[in-house]
């Protein structure tokens, strides 16, 4: 099934959790902040929150800046 992550279409297996999705991307969950359909997802829910068809994810993190 398809979800939208940072405006890009991504193919995932049904039942994929946020934690599994981040792992597939190679992103460390500890330093990434996830908004799903406009709602901030608590970090302790990454393991249990399953992504649904068409979900819109925003992955945000701290980057270098002045």
């Amino acid at each position, binding site marked *: 099934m398809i979800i939208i992550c940072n405006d*890009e279409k991504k193919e995932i297996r049904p039942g994929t959790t946020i934690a599994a999705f981040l792992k597939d991307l190679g992103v460390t969950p500890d330093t990434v902040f996830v908004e799903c359909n406009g709602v901030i997802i608590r970090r302790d829910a990454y393991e249990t929150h399953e992504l649904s068809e068409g979900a819109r994810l*925003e*992955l*945000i*993190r*701290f980057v*270098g*800046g*002045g």
Partner: protein
Amino acid sequence: MMLTIAGRVFRSRLFGGTGKFSSPQVMKEALDASGCEMVTVALRRVDLANPQDDIMSVLDRRKFLFLPNTSGARDADEAVRLARLARAAGGGDWLKLEVTPDPRTLLPDPVETLKAAEILVRDGFIVLPYINADPVLALRLQDVGVAAVMPLGSPIGTNQGILTAFQISIIIAQARVPVVVDAGLGAPSHAAQAMEMGADAVLVNTAIAVAGDPVRMARAFAMAVEAGREAYESGLGEKRLEADASSPAGGLDFLR
């Protein structure tokens, strides 16, 4: 005397930025060499083409206080949204508020900055606003409860030094909160100048990050900040128009 902002004591009066470094490792080594205890970070989307690029994995949060910025915000609404996201992302309550609508100059919008500061202070943020060196605005921001003011020496990333010395002197003279000179400090001498003028701290990013050797440049800035502060606390001699001999004027009778 040590610097205190919002009840937190800082031993170093040099604050660092984390942008523009050639690698996370160079950034870490430079920040370690600088001795700084507070560093700015920005909030952005994860780059899906390069998802492992992660500065947070090299920075020790027990060592550095993170000061998330609202860079990229063009008005108060965007700044407030970024601030709240930064807090939700675990960035804490400290915030460098910056609202820069014009990408060419990156000069801060005073009206939107004041508007955002009012909202964010009410929200419980510890707000450090980046401002043009405007003494009236600095007072207005203090009235709404900001924790410090951060007037610019010159525009971000220009390395031009302190082009706003006169206004910064007034801001310092009137300040009820710490004054952190931010932006445009391109050489350690510029940082020393700010500290000699009585600034409480300086924030340096570009000049360290783009140096040929960022680690040594970080050390140079640390020494300059310390020297400038030491000079300020020692009490500088007054500038004079006429010469005033350092050697005794008398005792030359044997010559004449």
